[in-house]
């Protein structure tokens, strides 16, 4: 019985050796094309960079990301399943990510993977491009990806994924179009003869996942539930699992996961109960290290010089609706920052002070007095800390900016 959404396509007999060799050759060719494209896309930009000089301004974020840091992430994994079988795999990805000042984010990734289960092997090569908006509290991203594989898994995979984030909750909806591995068949010919042939199975389904993320000290913990739609014969069309990632070193993390997972033929992943141990090794390129996925971003104290004189200072204070600030620019008397309807998550106040460097501390929602986020903490001489705040002169603002 065939699943809904699956299609059968028949091909002329390519010969048994050709059946095995053709997808592998396609995968290798695809890899070479990706690498050539990747390398050549750097060339025009690199050629424009004068020795020791600045790079030219790049208007498109897609081009800009190729001048940014790349990060190689290698993840060896070991999965054990309830039936006593196991799967070992290695995933490697090179990722470029560029974030603009308006929180637009573009990402380009090359993925390579290999998995070994029982006597079978699966290898895949893919490319993915994503575009989205990533703010401190919410974000939305659309990603398109394509991959080719050889061995005991999907031959070609196309997927479109939309993801959204609100606070600690994330929702992913991913539609996959898979052309599965060929299997021998026979084709009826006129005259009652049969010729050997092979078939390719195609399937299309959509996975929806909801996950909750939380930082427990240094541990990144998450719990995920998911469901699959559009594939009748899926052995596991609902799943749930928990995952913890512990940092072992600055670039090395240990991932532990357990629960029930769906079948992922694009990863040669069987369905059912599982336990996983994995290492995550992130290696930045020589340009700059990139933040790890899921890194918590902290809203910094924002300083806006006002045309009428003075400065508006604002900070992310949610869920509180007020914060207090005291420092050199208030004679160390507390002043209140309040949220308003237009930006309920931000508390702000207008202060009139001369441009200069000041020491301040802040209390959010009645909490302890601390250094405001984004300011450099300096010893206060009393056993504590104060934040170093720079209020820019209007001239410097016109010239292109200031720092807190």
């Amino acid at each position, binding site marked *: 019985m065939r699943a809904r959404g699956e299609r059968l396509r028949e091909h002329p007999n390519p010969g048994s050796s050709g059946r095995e060799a053709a997808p592998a050759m396609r995968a290798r060719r695809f890899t070479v094309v990706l690498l050539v494209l990747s390398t050549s896309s750097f060339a025009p930009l690199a050629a424009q*960079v004068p020795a020791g*000089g*600045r*790079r*030219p*301004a*790049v208007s498109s974020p897609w081009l*800009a990301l190729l*001048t*940014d*840091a790349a990060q190689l992430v290698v993840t060896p994994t070991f999965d054990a399943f309830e039936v006593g079988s196991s799967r070992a795999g290695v995933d490697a990805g090179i990722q470029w990510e560029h974030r*603009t*000042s*308006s929180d637009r984010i573009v990402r380009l990734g090359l993925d390579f993977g290999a998995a070994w289960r029982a006597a079978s092997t699966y290898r895949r090569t893919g490319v993915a491009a994503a575009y989205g908006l990533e703010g401190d509290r919410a974000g939305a991203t659309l990603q398109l990806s394509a991959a080719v594989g050889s061995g005991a898994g999907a031959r070609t995979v196309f997927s479109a994924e939309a993801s959204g984030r609100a606070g600690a909750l994330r929702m992913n909806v991913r539609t996959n179009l898979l052309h599965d591995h060929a299997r021998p068949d026979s084709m009826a010919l006129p005259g009652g003869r049969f010729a050997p042939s092979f078939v390719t199975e195609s399937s299309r389904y959509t996975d929806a996942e909801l996950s909750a993320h939380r930082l427990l000290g240094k541990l990144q913990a998450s719990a995920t539930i998911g469901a699959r739609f559009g594939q009748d014969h899926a052995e596991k069309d609902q799943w749930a699992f928990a995952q913890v990632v512990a940092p072992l*070193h*600055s670039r090395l993390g240990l991932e532990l996961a357990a629960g029930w997972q769906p079948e992922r033929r694009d990863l040669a992943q069987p369905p059912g109960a599982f336990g996983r141990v994995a290492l995550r090794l*992130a290696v*930045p390129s*020589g*340009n*700059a*290290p*990139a*933040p*790890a996925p899921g*890194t*918590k*971003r*902290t809203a*910094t104290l924002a300083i806006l010089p006002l045309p009428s004189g003075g400065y508006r200072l604002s900070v992310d204070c949610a869920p509180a609706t007020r914060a207090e600030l005291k*420092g*050199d620019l208030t*004679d*160390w*008397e507390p002043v209140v920052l309040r949220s308003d309807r237009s930006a309920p998550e931000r508390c702000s106040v207008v202060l009139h002070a001369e*441009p*200069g*460097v*000041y*020491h301040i501390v802040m209390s959010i929602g009645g909490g302890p007095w601390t250094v405001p986020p*984004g300011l*450099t903490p*300096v*010893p*206060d*001489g*009393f056993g*504590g800390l*104060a934040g*170093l705040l*720079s209020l820019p002169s209007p*001239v*410097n*603002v016109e*010239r*292109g*900016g*200031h*720092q*807190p």
Partner: protein
Amino acid sequence: MSGQRLAIGLAVLLMVITTAGATAQDARLMRRLDATTAHAVAEIIDSARAQHLPFEPLIQKALEGGSKGASAEMIVAAVRRLATRLQVARNSLGADATEAELVAGAAALDLGADTQSLRSLRAQKPEGGLTGPLMGLAYLLQRGVPPKGSADIVRSMLEAHLSDAEFATLQRLVDQDIQAGAPAAAAAEVRSRALIQHGARLRPRTDGGTR
């Protein structure tokens, strides 16, 4: 003759205004500190004024101590220490250093900068002043980047004529990398190099986009 009277009148008026200002500042100390502490702090402030050092940061340091419930001894010690730092900063940054530069320089000294580093920055003083670079230096030192490395990074950025905005960008990027687990020194090194190479593109525009 009338011109001389006018000049004398202006001088007297200026003295009155200056004295009134100082009195008002002293009044803040008197109101927030006990008399003995206020007197001890006032002596340090008078000494600083005699050396043409900015005294408002010293008053603020005393008020900070009062606000934080510090003991009299701690307040006096902290004010004296800051006065010394301001003096050293001024010696290193030059007599024309602004109050903001001296406060930022004093903070950098507090965090481990040496006078040689400050002097070398003075030699590369940009048109916009050294406040941004000194803030950048203080940030790098606070993040644990060794003093020599911090000074080298700031000097390299000054040589590349990067503005205060790029120093702010450096801080944001290095913070981001440190949160991701990167060592501060390595992050600062590669990020500053990237900013020197294409800092103008990374600088946020006033209209919210990027260059």
